[in-house]
């Protein structure tokens, strides 16, 4: 029934360079009203009108959920990426009118936790900005471990250290500092929940170690910032709408379907929420499943695809869309 989320008309109220790679954007509602309340870990999908194309990228809200006069996001420039972050950096200026989605939370705090242990890598710090603000206001018990390449790329490290002092530990790759993960994970009090957001290698490492040290899966929470991967162009036939379309090298299957005028549902655009799941009617070739939603068995059986992140290589593909 729903395609995408409810939209919000906003104006860019400020653009603030944070360091050589990261810029922060502030949004206010065009009508001056308060923005919707959200919870720590939520993201919004930002619509970018880039010439002919509409780009839709998800970004974590990093302001305090207690203050909804404005939303803030931080965008790390990815020179090799598909262009969304470059568009934000190059073209978005204060005063510009934009459209963003209502907040969606796919990385929420488990409010039963007695303690929240947070592990961030690089730009993966952003959801924790809101979560720590939320927890601090309620007297919640948290501890944040944050790894970054160099001190100057430690986005908001200074802000966090000042706000939370010893609850924050910083690690710099260029100084060979590394989280002592096993020790950290083995010394937590019962009732601790673990949250990790960062590069997929880091997420994999943390989940593996936690599992082998006996952490129950439901106490380990992670958020991938999986952008769709570029790849060879391919053709796809959409059976319900009766169209055949080409998916470009830098385009996701979801974006190609949208560009063809079909309005498929989505929430995360990162392969984790399940909303864009689409049945495969027939195929001759191989899937490159980049999602974290379908089970391994579902990946093998080739009956479904998540068009927001997955691709295809081969002669023909027909989807029920």
């Amino acid at each position, binding site marked *: 029934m729903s395609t995408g989320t409810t939209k919000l008309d906003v104006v860019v109220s400020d653009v603030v360079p944070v360091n050589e790679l990261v810029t922060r954007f502030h949004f206010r509602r065009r009508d001056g009203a308060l923005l919707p309340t959200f919870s720590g870990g939520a993201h919004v999908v930002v619509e970018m009108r880039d010439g002919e194309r509409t780009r839709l990228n998800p970004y974590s809200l990093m302001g305090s959920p207690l203050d909804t006069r404005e939303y803030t996001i931080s965008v790390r420039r990815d020179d090799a990426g598909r262009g969304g972050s470059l568009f934000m950096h190059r073209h978005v200026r204060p005063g510009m009118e934009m459209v963003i989605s209502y907040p969606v939370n796919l990385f929420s705090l488990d409010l039963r936790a007695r303690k929240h242990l947070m592990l961030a890598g690089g730009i993966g710090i952003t959801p924790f900005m809101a979560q720590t603000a939320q927890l601090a206001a309620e007297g919640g018990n948290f501890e944040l471990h944050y790894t970054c390449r160099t001190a100057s790329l430690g986005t908001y490290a200074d802000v966090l250290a000042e706000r939370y002092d010893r609850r924050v530990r910083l690690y710099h790759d260029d100084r060979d500092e590394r989280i002592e993960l096993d020790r950290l994970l083995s010394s937590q009090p019962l009732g601790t929940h673990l949250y990790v957001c960062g590069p997929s290698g880091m997420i994999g490492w943390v989940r593996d170690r936690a599992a082998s040290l006996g952490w129950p899966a439901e106490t380990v929470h992670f958020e991938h910032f999986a952008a769709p991967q570029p790849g060879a162009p391919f053709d796809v036939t959409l059976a319900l709408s009766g169209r055949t379309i080409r998916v470009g090298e830098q385009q996701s299957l979801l974006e190609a379907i949208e560009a063809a005028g079909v309005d498929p549902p989505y929430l995360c655009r990162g392969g984790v929420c*399940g909303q864009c799941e689409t049945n495969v009617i027939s195929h001759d070739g191989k899937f490159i499943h980049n999602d974290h939603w379908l089970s391994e068995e579902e990946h093998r059986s080739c009956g479904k695809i998540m068009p927001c992140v997955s691709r295809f290589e081969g002669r023909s593909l027909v989807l029920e869309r």
Partner: protein
Amino acid sequence: MGITFRNETFRNDFTFRNSPEHVRRFPFPFHEDSYMYAVNIEPHVAGPKGSVLENLIDVDEHYVAEMQDRALVLAEDPLRCQSLPHMTLAGWDLLELLMEQQALGYPEHFTLTRDGDRWRWINRPLGIDDTFTFGDVSTLPYGPMEYITRQSQGDFCILDQRDGNLWMDAGMVTTQADWSLDFDIGMNFFEWHAPVPLAHEKGIFVRALKFLTNIQQGKPARRLNWTMTINPRLDTSPENYHKWGPDRTTVTPENVGEKVHLRVELQSFWRLPRSNGIVFPIRCYLIKMDELVTQPKWARRLHRVIRDLPDELANYKGLTRYRPTLVEWLSKLDDGSPTSPGFGPD
């Protein structure tokens, strides 16, 4: 202007009645002459003026009497209202939602004023005028969920979302059709639905859960469900089975019209913003057969639906015992002519 609240009871002398205007706004749940179990979820958007969907949270002529009945149930059994410790934030979310919606839909009866986190809530039908600090439990006479659901029609299940599942971790449940919060609290979606027949095979529940965990802020959804109740009892809980269970044996051809009630639940589903939980308000509407059959289309159609209901469903809904008496009584009002499509009366 405003609603005229009825003075009536849902127990003992059972003086509950629907005014003629309320009969016509009754959410009759059958859009065709047969009934099949389905998930039938749709967006919860405001509907036609005068219908129960005119406002997203409906307040009607039974409001004051229902709230009095709820207070009686809670006095006897405080476990009808429970909230696990991690659900307090969701309780505040619900308080905000209900105060906002009631004040928006019925400004002559409810007023909400906010000055930062200092809030003032005026509920004229119940004679309440309270000022409190949003987020500070000590400034209200009850926890936030209990406070506001003692002033809102319908039951409320607040669900925590974790591990791709929903957990019934808080609720105010005093008008339920034969289930128990005290039994279900802490259970996940599959656990609390375990007794439903037929549906599992169809994978309905897997799909419903996927749908519900994807409910978005600002986009509530709804569905209708129905059953039947003997006498206008709001509280047909398992705890009180000894009171209402035997009622089923008291239906006679003479008293069908007065005793048998169609019970329709309007369930809506909302994402709560601060806690990221989901709330299901389950709003119960009752109508006795005598009132329902004042609409000839509904009389004809209900006859066909009840007559043709598969036995397992009739059993599940607890109708088996008095179904023949009811069908016989309704059959006299069915002249065999076709019914028009849609839910509304002709």
